[in-house]
């Protein structure tokens, strides 16, 4: 039943974009209403409260568009993974049919299909669960361990079945390494973040990315420090604990 469920889920994802747009609007309107509500409580007239809420929010249409774009990217990412999973299940199904009902030649092809599907599923699993969450050094350590085990089983074992397990482990190790390589070729979010932080830590300097620079006061006054010499951000971090 799982392949059918996967396909149905994929089909339902095609109708999600309209729902997302509606949800974005609902969320942004909620924010404006909350701000207007607080303004009213602070003594503003309804017109002033609404106008202030809109002014503080900024360009509503631009914000909505930005949210919509990000939401769309996410949806496409989810959909791609779901479609790939759906295809994997179709391959498994074909493999099983050939394995059970086919002739001897077809049975071997069936096994091949199943192996491809298992490797494909493993690839997605590694990407979702392991590569993105474990640090690079640990990843590399695990890869070398798997490759080492695979090579030992492949070349120092007399049993055919154990040798096949060795080959399987070597393929897993190589797949894992490929995933890490692909990840490294994408923009490194952590490095970008650090660069942003370095730029914002030098207020007063005409940086190469002036959009990150909002403070015009002298460095000694901004951001204001408390009695312990902490900046507002540092204070927020420690006070929240």
């Amino acid at each position, binding site marked *: 039943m799982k392949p059918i469920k996967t396909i149905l889920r994929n089909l339902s994802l095609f109708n999600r974009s309209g729902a997302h747009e509606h949800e974005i609007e609902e969320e942004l309107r909620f924010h404006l209403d909350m701000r207007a509500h607080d303004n009213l409580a602070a003594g503003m007239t309804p017109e002033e409260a609404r106008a202030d809420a809109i002014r503080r929010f*900024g360009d509503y249409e631009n914000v909505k568009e*930005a*949210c919509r774009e990000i939401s769309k990217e996410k949806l496409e990412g989810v959909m791609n993974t779901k479609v790939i999973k759906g295809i994997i299940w179709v391959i498994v199904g074909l493999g099983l049919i050939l394995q059970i009902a086919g002739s001897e030649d077809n049975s071997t092809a069936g096994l091949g299909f199943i192996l491809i599907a298992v490797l494909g599923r493993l690839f997605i699993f590694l990407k979702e669960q392991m590569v993105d969450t474990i640090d690079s050094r640990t990843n590399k350590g695990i890869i070398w361990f798997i490759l080492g085990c695979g090579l030992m089983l492949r070349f120092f074992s007399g049993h055919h079945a154990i040798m096949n397990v060795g080959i399987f482990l070597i393929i897993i190790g190589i797949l894992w390494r490929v995933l890490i390589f692909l990840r490294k070729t994408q923009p490194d979010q952590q490095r970008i973040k650090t660069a*942003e932080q370095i730029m914002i830590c030098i207020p007063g300097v005409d940086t190469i990315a002036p959009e990150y620079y909002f403070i015009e006061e002298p460095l000694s006054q901004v951001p204001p420090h408390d009695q312990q010499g902490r*900046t507002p951000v*540092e204070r927020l971090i420690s006070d929240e604990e």
Partner: protein
Amino acid sequence: MAQSKPNLLQGTLSMLILRTLTRGPLHGYEIAQRIQQASDEILKVEEGSLYPALYRMEEQGWIEAEWGASQNNRRAKYYKLTQAGRQQLASERSNWERLSEAVRRVLRTA
């Protein structure tokens, strides 16, 4: 002399959002309010920039969103921290402390 209110610096917004969510799920308006209040009204979240940041963080898996009922019984989207978000917070916090310490050292010596 009235203190100026600097806008919230863009590079630190995600860290502050993550830190604010460590106490429990909050909707966007509450997040903005909490940051402003916890910083004694000094840090002002650009309300328009908050939502794209939240969506981006959700896409990156640092936070999860779920619709629920707000205090005034309206439907609101609540964000909560994920395990990946906690790790990201630890990393960003460590970066922030390292960098602010470096700037402090320069201010003391230069």
